């Protein structure tokens, strides 16, 4: 187990957060504008592996989940930040290059942006496609889709 609890580390770094043990594991919630500092701080105490980064539409805002792992001890923590629709969260790619692809994906699929991303192009979908992972975007059957040439 790393010497420091994530909440303590963030507290020393001066980052306000709330930590909780949930069914998922150790979850730390913090403000979106401090996520970069938080990841850099946690990296220095051993949380050096970004397992995943994805967004969830909570119905009101977008919740970004940063799944971190202390590689030496196989200990996972989840950092969660809330971002407004079409809002921003700083890109964390220069702390965790693994975030390069998932950030692009989250940006296009949830309709938000990651300032500081070196290559902020769309990754999976084409231009003009609405952010499909938002709950407001409904899944339609084939018959419901109006094709442009029909």
């Amino acid at each position, binding site marked *: 187990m790393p010497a420091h609890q994530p909440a303590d580390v963030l507290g020393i*770094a001066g980052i306000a957060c709330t930590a909780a043990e*949930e*069914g*998922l*594991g150790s979850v730390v919630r913090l403000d979106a504008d401090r996520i*970069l*500092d938080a990841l*850099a*701080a946690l*990296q*220095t105490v051993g949380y*050096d*592996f*970004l*397992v*995943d980064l*994805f967004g*969830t*539409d909570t119905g009101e805002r977008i919740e970004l*989940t940063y*799944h971190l792992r202390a*590689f030496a001890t*196989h200990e*996972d923590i989840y950092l969660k930040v809330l971002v407004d629709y079409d809002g921003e969260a*700083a890109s964390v*790619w*220069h*702390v*965790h*290059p*693994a975030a*390069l*692809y998932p950030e692009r994906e989250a940006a296009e699929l949830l309709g938000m942006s990651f300032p*500081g991303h*070196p*290559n902020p192009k*769309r*990754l*999976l*979908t*084409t231009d003009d496609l609405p952010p*499909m*992972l938002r709950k407001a*975007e409904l*899944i339609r059957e084939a018959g419901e889709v109006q094709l442009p040439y029909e």
Partner: protein
Amino acid sequence: MSDGHSWHSDVALEEGRPAYLPRGLKRVPRGVDELATEHLVLNMGPQHPSTHGVLHVLIELDGEEVISAEASLGYLHRGIEKLAESRRYHQVATLLDRADYVSGLHTETAFALATEKLAGIEVPWRASWLRSLAMELNRYASHLVWLGTFGMDAGAMAPFLYIMRDREMILDILEEWCGSRMMFNYVRPGGVFADIPAGLDAKIRAWLRVADSYLDDNDALLGGNEIFQARIRGTGLIDAATALAFGMTGGCLRASGVDYDLRRDVPYCAYGELDFEVPLGVNGDNLDRYTVRVGEMRQCLRLIRQLVDGVPEGDFTAKVPKVFRPPAGESYAAVESPRGELGIHIVSDGGLTPYRMRLRSPAYFNLAIVDEALAGGLVADAIVTLGSLDIVLGEIDR
């Protein structure tokens, strides 16, 4: 990796140059100098025999040397994560088979494990055992596909077809067991869909009797070839720090010398009871990825022997209600798929369908290294290195 970083991001951004700078394509403009040479940007894919599906890689070339590379994904994007939000928990496995179509059982199991964790379902020991057995058979089949296509990328046509013969035998076994050759839909939350058919263990044992010698043949035919060794030795180098920073897992990470295997380190299903080794590489070049995967195949056969000999008695599935509503919450479960850590993150609101399902695809993260790994090599190396990463586009694009 953390060198030069302070806890204050502004300092880190201004002073310490980030360790990994995505280079992007830097085409030298024509006309600056009459003698200036121009870099050639080659569009490899989406229709190309060696991109294992519909990957599009932009390669910037100086002569035949790769200056930089950028992957362009999404040609196989079917919105599986979105579609899963409209399927009940028992129906999602059908979608996930299509995500990683070479080893569907791993994706199914990851989803089942995450659901069970969410709902607190106790899985019968026999079901866990059967899952492990089916997964190992599927892993072997998946590694065979990789071995064959890797050889094809290097121009060796013959081993591919010999390897497909071996894979066909496994697919026959899995077809008799799960009812399908690739789209299994076998692992359900709570257990598995059906028990192992009577007499199938004899077939698996019959296959095991020849599998070793077939693997030795294929290894000798491909890995024993000096031309092939010259092609893969020292090319596509990925060091351990870079691999970890880019979130690589699985054989690609182990080839770089990082000893990490979920089956051993975070045991799931029946792996805690089993005896196996984790092969490791040293340098992280294509040769290491080759030896690690072939070593993994040998361990795979060892695991299958143990699994088929020790199938315990009991139920093959727990009682899971037809109308299944897990409690609200979140859960994450990961399996060691043939490509690496395959994780499923489920967010539930207590409804019939997942509120959000996230597939942490290993090949997706392994592919992000493409620029680091390809730059500096030749076009021919680029093809081989892409092949060594063992990408499956269905899983990358989801």
